[in-house]
């Protein structure tokens, strides 16, 4: 025990209390990015930005930027739609979130979108890949039986499921991928999305035609989610390791020819391709196959380039960049947060597009009607038209994809909000029906990683990885908490190391894994 110096003899220096430099807004849970142990976390606001901070007993303190606009972070709370309870749960509540995935009965939302990773192998070795895929011979591919079981798990949980996405690895390399699409189409699953780098689509026209045929099945659709990060060679080399520009162009032209609808999916990283967002949108609008663009700040799970957790891209940052790069088209308020998941996870806008390339008129739908008057779940109880709310809920959701009948129907229903047929003699819903090929969707989705993970958001995640052992695991838990490593180990029989983010503050504590990602160094210096 230490004795204080006696202070009677001289007057103590006057001490002034100082204020903290941040506003404490949430107490939550996260994980240690090194050992993945669940830890307490707090969310704080500094300089109108939102940060998540946590401390692991073993590994110390970690902090990451989670939202670039604190005002919007707080105001979006009112757009948090009450979740829908899944028909079935696959696990029990035992250790608490995020250790019981899933889905456990404490999960707050059903699965809007189910993802099946059909393999771990890929014909690319991208420097950025949350799945840590590549030319690897120690991975796995799922079988017919496994795929059928995964689909059945999804259907049991959803009843009638809206969308399943086949991913990987590179799913077009799986020799049974067309059969897997058939398995989905013979079940009550309305839409299939194929998530691909486009190499096979560029070179195998027969394969594209087979996809096109399946897109014509009545009541069903097959749509393409094409990795598309930009136009500069450097973008391609640094994100994909190869210049794939001609592949992308050919893949898109082949899709257009086969009548397939494409979403351009861009991984966006600071200092790499953040300046190409406007060009990607404009290219998408001009290409006949493309009906939407999805921007995803690079998920710092799996394999990625070194990054600064305090200066990463978040949804408001991406939206701001879009506005700066196409100021005549976009302004603040054109994007609206998605209520089905946690509203800070995803923002969407829909555009009506007219004119010729180079001379476009762009009408963002949120400028035509007050979306917030319909999707406010805290203060709004009575609504002039619940049909419009329902339509907007489907459009602003994780299951909305251009090319699906649900999304097209709901776009038409939304036009009812603009209806003035009684007065002005224009049947806008009918008129907008004719506009369907002029509607364009932009999604901005910031997936969580071991740095940014907040169980508050995770508990309402509506994008789930369907695992071969019959579970539905929230996408961000799957990639952050260790489930991906667990499943790959079980499926391949090859032990997979715990993957740790390649964050600048961790550089001295990291070691390489065989797949290019990082893991905790055995005796890292402290």
């Amino acid at each position, binding site marked *: 025990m230490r004795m204080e110096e006696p202070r009677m003899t001289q007057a103590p220096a006057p001490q002034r209390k100082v204020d903290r430099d941040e506003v404490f807004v949430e107490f939550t849970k996260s994980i240690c990015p090194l050992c993945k142990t669940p830890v307490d976390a707090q969310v704080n606001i500094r300089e109108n930005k939102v940060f998540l901070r946590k401390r692991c007993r073993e590994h110390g303190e970690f902090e990451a930027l989670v939202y670039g606009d604190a005002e919007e972070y707080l105001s979006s709370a009112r757009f948090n739609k009450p979740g829908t309870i899944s028909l079935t749960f696959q696990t029990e509540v035992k250790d608490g979130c995020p250790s019981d995935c899933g889905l456990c009965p404490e999960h707050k939302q059903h699965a809007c979108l189910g993802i099946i990773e059909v393999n771990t192998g890929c014909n690319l070795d991208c420097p950025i890949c949350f799945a840590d895929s590549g030319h690897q011979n120690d991975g796995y591919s799922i079988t017919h039986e496994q795929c059928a079981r995964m689909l059945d798990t999804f259907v049991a949980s959803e009843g009638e499921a809206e969308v399943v996405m086949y991913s990987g690895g590179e799913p077009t390399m799986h020799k049974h991928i067309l059969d897997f699409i058939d398995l989905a189409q013979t079940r009550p699953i309305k839409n299939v999305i194929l998530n691909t780098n486009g190499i096979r689509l560029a070179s195998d026209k027969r394969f594209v035609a087979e996809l096109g045929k399946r897109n014509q099945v009545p009541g069903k659709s097959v749509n393409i989610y094409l990795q598309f990060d930009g136009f500069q060679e450097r973008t391609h080399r640094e994100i994909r390791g190869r210049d794939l520009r001609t592949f992308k162009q050919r893949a898109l032209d082949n899709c257009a020819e086969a009548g397939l609808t494409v979403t351009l999916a861009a991984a966006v990283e600071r200092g790499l391709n953040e300046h190409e967002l406007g060009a990607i949108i404009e290219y998408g609008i001009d290409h006949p196959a493309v009906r939407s663009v999805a921007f995803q700040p690079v998920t710092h799970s799996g394999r990625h380039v070194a990054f600064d957790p305090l200066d990463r891209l978040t949804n408001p940052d991406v939206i701001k960049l879009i506005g700066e790069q196409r100021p005549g088209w976009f302004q603040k308020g054109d994007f609206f947060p998605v209520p089905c998941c946690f509203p800070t996870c995803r923002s969407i806008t829909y555009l009506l597009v007219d004119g010729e390339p180079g001379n476009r008129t762009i009408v963002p739908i949120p400028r035509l009607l*007050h979306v917030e008057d319909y999707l406010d779940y805290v203060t709004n109880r*009575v609504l*002039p038209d619940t049909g419009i709310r329902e339509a907007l809920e489907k459009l602003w959701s994780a299951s909305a994809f251009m090319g699906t009948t649900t999304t097209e129907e709901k776009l038409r229903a939304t036009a009812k909000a603009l209806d003035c047929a009684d007065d002005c003699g224009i049947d806008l819903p009918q008129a907008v029906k004719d506009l369907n090929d002029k509607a364009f969707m932009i999604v901005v989705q910031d997936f969580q990683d071991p740095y940014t993970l907040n169980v508050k958001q995770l508990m309402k995640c509506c994008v789930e990885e369907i695992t071969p052992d019959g579970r539905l695991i929230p996408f961000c838990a799957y990639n952050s908490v260790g489930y991906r490593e667990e499943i790959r180990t079980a499926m391949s029989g090859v032990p997979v190391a715990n993957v740790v983010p390649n964050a600048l503050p961790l550089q001295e504590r990291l070691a390489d894994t065989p797949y290019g990602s990082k893991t905790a160094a055995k005796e890292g210096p402290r």
Partner: protein
Amino acid sequence: MTPPGPDNDPVPTANEDLKACCAAAYSCDVVALLLGDSYHPGGAALTRRLAGHLGLTAGSRVLDVASGRGTTALLLADAHAVWVEGVDYSAANTALARGAAQAAGLADRVAFTTGDAEQLPYPAESFDAVVCECALCTFPDKTRAAAEFARVLRPGGRVGITDVTAAPDRLPPELSTLGARIACIADARPLAEYAEILKGAGLRVVRTERHDQAMTRMIDQIEARLNLLRLTAPDRLAAAGVDLTAAPAVLQAARDAVADGVLGYALLIAERTDRPRSVT
């Protein structure tokens, strides 16, 4: 009364014509086309903000002047459990508002009547609060309308107004023509003048707020709808007399006017002082 319509002279010669013009504009003209059926600047968020300053309690009686299709009245009845009377100059709107009340299951607490804001069909001191959203600017005799608000309000009751503000002598020429047709902003007044009008009716102004951003958003919405209609129904727009080639300049003039403080949107709360004035 001559039936109002888009072919009528937009510059009325008498107050009756102006009232008819504005009511008609809001119920069936190109305005409905461009603003939508239930839109006013600020949307539901501003209505809620307005309601928060009215001292409403469950069972309060509220009058919504120029109730349109009932959006504000229904929001108040639902969120504050109050009784609402809506009065609108357009019979078509009254009918639509009644339908909306039925659909919302609020018909037992919300009633709609066709009537004139300058001669409200209600006895004196019959309401705890009066609201009037985006409409006072369209009333030709604002002093008389304000006196009517005061008359039907009980002593201590409050009137809440959101409205277009404009400095008419400083409005650019593009807007005086568009204004007459679209939002009747040509007869909007500066915020201070609205406050004076209320004061003159024996209403003590307790709060004023500027919400000019709501006006900017309305301009954005008009532009978006113009573009939508150009995509879907260009011939109908032309028939309604909308000159699409002139639109960009007019919209830019409107944005500039908001930036210069010449055009805007405002919220006012006023309280009836104890001794009501008699209406002459």
